[in-house]
């Protein structure tokens, strides 16, 4: 499961992109390739693109290492697109993308919107909130209604685990999970992996400490699965009340002491602690939480000197992370946001190849 190689020979996925600057792929891959193998890979760039083998992106679970690498490679190219003056591709021209958000989100929704627009899709945002649930319309009703409008891609965020899977069963288009309850948030994990790979040159063998509220975090779940699949050495760090049952069997070493958990870490990934969980229900107080689990320079000093700090946002400064760390030299937090757009472009593009009349299918 942790073998990330093998598929790389087919990872010539983005070759149809005319904007890709030559040599962009020389990004070191984390798949343990021998140099010879890498050259074979390079020469394969003109081979036909491998079709992403899934119609939906519902979670990281179920994706093979090849699939993940394919998406990351494609995202690397999307980064270049976003850095041009002309930030446009025509991949999704004529396609309709609906961002269906049952849970408020600024950055994820904006990120998906930009991603869709940069690929030329018509993007519509729907923030359902809880109002239409109160009106009595079920998720399935909403899905059927939208489906009748013939979208090509639906991006869904919902407060209930499994809701996106449920919706995917009822519609004809491709569905992307933008976060479902405490289950998964696959594009966040992909953007985190992309950020890591671009900064460290690899993922395999890196020590990644995921810190904070693991229990309620879909980001932690998706990251655990993805980082394990790509061969990282994953740790989770947090108070026992915020660690899920059986986490030790999910491919993570468990620490309840931040200093031990961060020791020699390459990547420190902080998670947001929801306000309603700070006042005695899961942890006694913000003050106590920050004392033991907030990332400050003293705790960060236990990690490797070149360790990098990440946070999926939005941050609670002074709760899980000190301001000077969040804005400091080791912080990748702003870069994560940029990678977010790229990864979402990659996902939209990969899934769009399954759509009817797609060039890749034809």
């Amino acid at each position, binding site marked *: 499961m942790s073998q990330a190689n093998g598929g790389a020979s087919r990872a010539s996925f983005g070759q149809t992109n005319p904007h890709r600057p030559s040599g962009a792929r020389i990004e070191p891959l984390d798949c343990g390739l021998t140099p010879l193998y890498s050259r074979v890979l390079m020469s394969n760039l003109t081979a036909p693109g491998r079709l992403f083998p899934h119609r939906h992106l519902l979670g990281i679970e179920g994706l093979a290492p090849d699939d993940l690498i394919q998406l990351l490679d494609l995202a690397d190219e999307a980064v270049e697109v976003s850095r041009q003056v002309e930030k446009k591709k025509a991949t999704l021209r004529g396609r309709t993308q609906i961002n269906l958000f049952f849970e408020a989100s600024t950055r994820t929704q904006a990120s998906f919107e930009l991603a869709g627009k940069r690929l030329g899709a018509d993007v519509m945002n729907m923030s359902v909130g809880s109002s239409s649930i109160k009106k009595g319309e079920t998720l399935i009703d909403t899905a059927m209604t939208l489906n009748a409008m013939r979208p090509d891609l639906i991006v869904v965020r919902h407060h*209930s685990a*499994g809701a996106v899977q449920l919706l995917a069963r009822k519609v004809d288009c491709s569905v992307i999970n933008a976060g479902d309850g*405490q289950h998964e948030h696959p594009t966040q994990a992909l953007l985190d992996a992309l950020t890591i790979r671009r900064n460290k040159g690899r993922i395999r063998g890196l020590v990644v400490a995921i810190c904070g509220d693991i229990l309620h975090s879909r980001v932690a779940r998706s990251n655990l699965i993805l980082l394990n699949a790509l061969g990282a050495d994953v740790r989770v760090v947090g108070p026992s009340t915020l660690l899920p*049952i*059986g986490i030790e069997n999910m491919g993570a070493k468990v620490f309840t002491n931040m200093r031990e958990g961060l020791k020699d870490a390459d990547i420190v990934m902080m998670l947001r602690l929801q306000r309603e969980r700070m006042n005695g229900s899961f942890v006694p107080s913000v003050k106590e939480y920050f004392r033991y689990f907030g990332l400050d320079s003293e705790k960060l000093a236990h990690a490797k000197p070149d360790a990098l700090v990440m946070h999926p946002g939005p941050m609670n400064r002074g709760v899980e992370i000190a301001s000077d760390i969040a804005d400091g030299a080791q912080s990748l937090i702003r870069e994560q946001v940029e990678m977010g757009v790229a990864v979402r472009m990659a996902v939209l593009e990969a899934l769009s190849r399954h759509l009817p009349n797609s060039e890749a299918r034809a």
Partner: protein
Amino acid sequence: MTTQRPVLIINAHLVDPLTATETQGSLAIENGVIHAWGRAIDASAPPEGALVIDGRGRTLTPGLVDLRAFVGEPGAEHRETLSSASRAAAAGGVTTVVSMPETNPPVDDPAVVDYLVRRAREKAGIRLLPAAGLTKGLKGKEMTEIGLLREAGAVFFTDGARSVANAQVMRRALTYARDFDALIVHHIEDADLADGGVMNESELSSRLGLPGIPREAETIMLERDISLVRLTGGRYHAAMVSCAASLDIIARAKQEGLPVTCGVSINTLTLNENDISTYRTFLKLSPPLRGEDDRRAMVEGVASGLIDVIVSDHNPQDVETKRRPFAECADGAIGLETMLSAALRLVHSGDVTLPRLMQALALHPANLINLPQGRLLKGAPADLILFDPDEPFVLNPDTLHSRCKNTPFDGARLQGRVHMTMVGGRIVHEA
């Protein structure tokens, strides 16, 4: 009472839970009660005017007695009515159903019990007996009129799927009920510990991102109840146990000689948490489906007799309440019609003998509520079913008689089809 035409069922495989025997032979019914059964009956000379039924070698047993079903009346007729529940039960070989009090209004008043008893006589082909609430409004605060409700026909007292959190209320109810020899049936779950949980707490719940309910929510409540039974001497039945640790508690209580019994739902007995897989909402149940180890313990509990009864926990839920994201949908699954064939899985797997299974499905539940049913005995009501335990089929929910189709056995391969159901010597279902 008008005399009924005598019935003679010949050429049957008779399974009697009381004597735990299996015999080839015939069974004679007169005036709606069992007159005689066994090898000795002369099948060639039926009484004059008798209806002779050829059993064709199929299994003839007492009809099932189900101590836990939600039937919708009054107040939730869109989910189930007495007549639809009755048709489902008859098709599933269930001849006596005890209805739960979580109706609207709840069954906490003798007038509602009376209404149900009379309406069941009109609408139901099978025997439908109401259970009454243990506390007023099922709110867990003040006990109901246990004496009057019992006189009106309530067979036991329970707050249905709600637990009585207050130990003082439970203590008083157990103490008071003892004077009427009334049975108290309790849903064992500590509401605070289970709060927010939607499935068994396990590695799987962590993976699915669903809040879990620990087994301790059940065992803590059960331990408390057993202590109160020891204190009061009231008759107590744990409605549905779901984990191995609960069976240890029950075993100790029984060893001590306390008046304690327990049941298990057919779902807990035949399914486990892995069946939830891709958030299948029809498997969202209370108590939640546990792991396979717990399920195995339940099967052994039935085989050893430690678990007294198997219930369907029939709970019809419509599209509105079930076609939602897992955490948001209602608990419950229908079960009246599939209880027998699902339970036969335990026989086919070699874990439980057929007579033992029929004890848990018919004899023991009948005994708990002092019914003469559940046995092949001269003078017992002729509530009987004829079925082929081996006949295979794939369950098609559209063929079910319940008003709701939320079956966890959708598309499942099952064995055992009921060909005839008889209540008081009258045929109420034939297939």
